[in-house]
């Protein structure tokens, strides 16, 4: 087995008395797509926030390729190869689609501090942004403000932003949430495409079982902030414990 690219060790966050994520230890490997499942309020998005830095852990560690990122700001983690897409569409609304993607490309290239040459001189950045526009089939929308896109295209742009960051770790939080049936496969195809590059690690929070079956190499189940199960998708989904959680029986059983 390859070395894990991302490790969380006893990762915990408390909000007052409430423990939202409780001592989650897990390793993620390159070339592997892990789907994180669990009922609402299980701590999936919070777990993501701890890895990508929107929240800072109360205790435990986040380690990426041997580098500890636990206390780092989100921008620092992005430079260490952690890329995150959001559950609620989270774009730069007044800027054009192309500009949205160009910003991600520019961040990746570390060129944000160039302040005396016009943007148009940096052709390579724009070309790369156009490449990702094409990959996500948004070229026709290039010059529209992100806010005016239909919901499905906004979700695609969300994915395009993440792809343009060219991270080592891709983190998708319900990438097809609120999408119509004819748009969802496009996004799932893009995610499946990422798996072909065996140096990349993909983490995906998803509810829809057909998506889990189609994409997952591995499943981890979170419940009440704790890691309940981890392993082969079919086996995990078949286990009694997981069934109980999904059917809401575990509370009574405990």
């Amino acid at each position, binding site marked *: 087995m390859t070395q894990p690219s991302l490790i969380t060790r006893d990762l915990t966050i408390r909000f007052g008395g409430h423990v939202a994520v409780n001592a989650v230890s897990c390793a993620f490997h390159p070339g592997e797509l892990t789907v994180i499942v669990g009922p609402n309020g299980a701590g999936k998005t919070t777990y993501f926030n701890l890895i*990508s*830095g*929107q929240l800072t852990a109360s205790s435990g560690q986040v380690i990426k390729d041997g580098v500890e990122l636990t206390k780092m*700001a*989100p*921008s*620092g983690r*992005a*430079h260490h190869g952690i890329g*995150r897409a*959001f559950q609620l569409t*989270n*774009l*730069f*609304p*007044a*800027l054009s689609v192309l*500009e949205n993607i*160009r*910003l*991600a490309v*520019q*961040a*990746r290239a570390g*060129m*944000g*501090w*160039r*302040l*005396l*040459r*016009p*943007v148009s001189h*940096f052709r390579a*950045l724009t070309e790369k942004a156009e490449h990702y526009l094409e990959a996500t089939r948004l070229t026709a929308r*290039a*010059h529209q403000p992100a806010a005016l896109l239909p919901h499905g295209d906004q979700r695609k742009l969300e994915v395009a*932003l993440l792809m343009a*960051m060219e991270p080592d770790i891709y983190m998708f939080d319900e990438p097809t949430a609120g999408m119509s049936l004819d748009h969802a496969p496009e996004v799932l195809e893009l995610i499946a495409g990422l798996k072909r590059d065996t140096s990349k690690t993909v983490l995906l929070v998803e509810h829809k079982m057909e998506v889990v079956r189609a994409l997952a190499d591995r499943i981890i189940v979170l419940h009440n902030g704790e890691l309940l199960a981890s392993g082969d998708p079919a086996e995990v989904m078949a286990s009694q414990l997981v069934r109980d959680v999904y059917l809401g029986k575990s509370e009574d059983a405990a």
Partner: protein
Amino acid sequence: MSMKPTYGSIGVKLVVLLIAAALLFAPFLFQDVRSIEVAARICIFIVLVASYDLLIGYTGIVSFAHTMFFGFGAYGAAILLKQMGPGWAPVVLGGLAGIALSLVIAVAIGLLSLRVKAIFFAMITLAAASVALVLASQLSHLTGGEDGITYSAPDLFKPATKLLVDAEGKVLKIAGVRMNGKIAAYYFVFLSSAVLFGLMLRLVGSPLGTVLKAIRENEARAEAIGYRVVAYRTFVFCISAVVASLAGTIYAVWLKYTGPETALSFDIMIDILLMVVIGGMGTMWGPVIGATLLVIAQYYLRDLMGAAAEAVSSVPLLPELLNPDRWLFWLGILFILLVYFFPKGIAGTAMEKGVRQ
């Protein structure tokens, strides 16, 4: 592949070009003392408002300390010109001192409070500006207190200076305008303002400018894709403070007087806010239009109303309404109308009109 500019944005740029041309030839176009005062004030305020737009329009930072930085630059030059006598050394040293002080305060405020909520940051800047205003009136042995400081500008700018002379050794006249120190002083103001404005224009068009807009649009996402938001914010706060400080130094040299009213008062802060709102935020053309319009209104609305009152003197009630003493009332109405019909400011609203296919 890029989109065609709208007719509105072409129109806005034409207006800006017209204003630039008028300012460039102001001493020749408007040959009276007051007009030159107005033109110089417009130049300074374009720079001051544009530097404020970097904060509020481009990055989404609300600060009330912009006049404080303007004041640092003005008082720096004023105090040294008073202490050392007229010359370039006090101007340069005073300007540098203003920049240094502005940078120290901007970095301190920025690092302490740019991480926190916008409203808290705005309050901190308000507090800092109030302290600066109180200090300026308290340290009267240095600042002249409420009376301010009167001093002489460098010799080059003295009205008696002969900039160009004819064969007989008299001051040369070009198009009826005497080439004396006053002309030199005006072009000092115009050129330094043009350079500062050009630098800011360059800045907003650069990759850094796009990051500032990204922060304004969605701070959390800008951070998530890899931009250290607090560093960019602190940086733009510093740049804007330095430019404001330099504008203050230039204004101090031009006015040969610096006091709380001309360089530090909250009235100036309110003027800056009005100019950026009326002109249009988030575009460098907005401050040009806003500053020009407001300075002209402040100087000429009374005259205009006086003339209008004369003209309608035979009609009942109207002359009363148009009495020059009521100019602030009409200025207020003008603001409300402008904000109502141009919700994104004149430049911002106009640039969206006339989309070309």
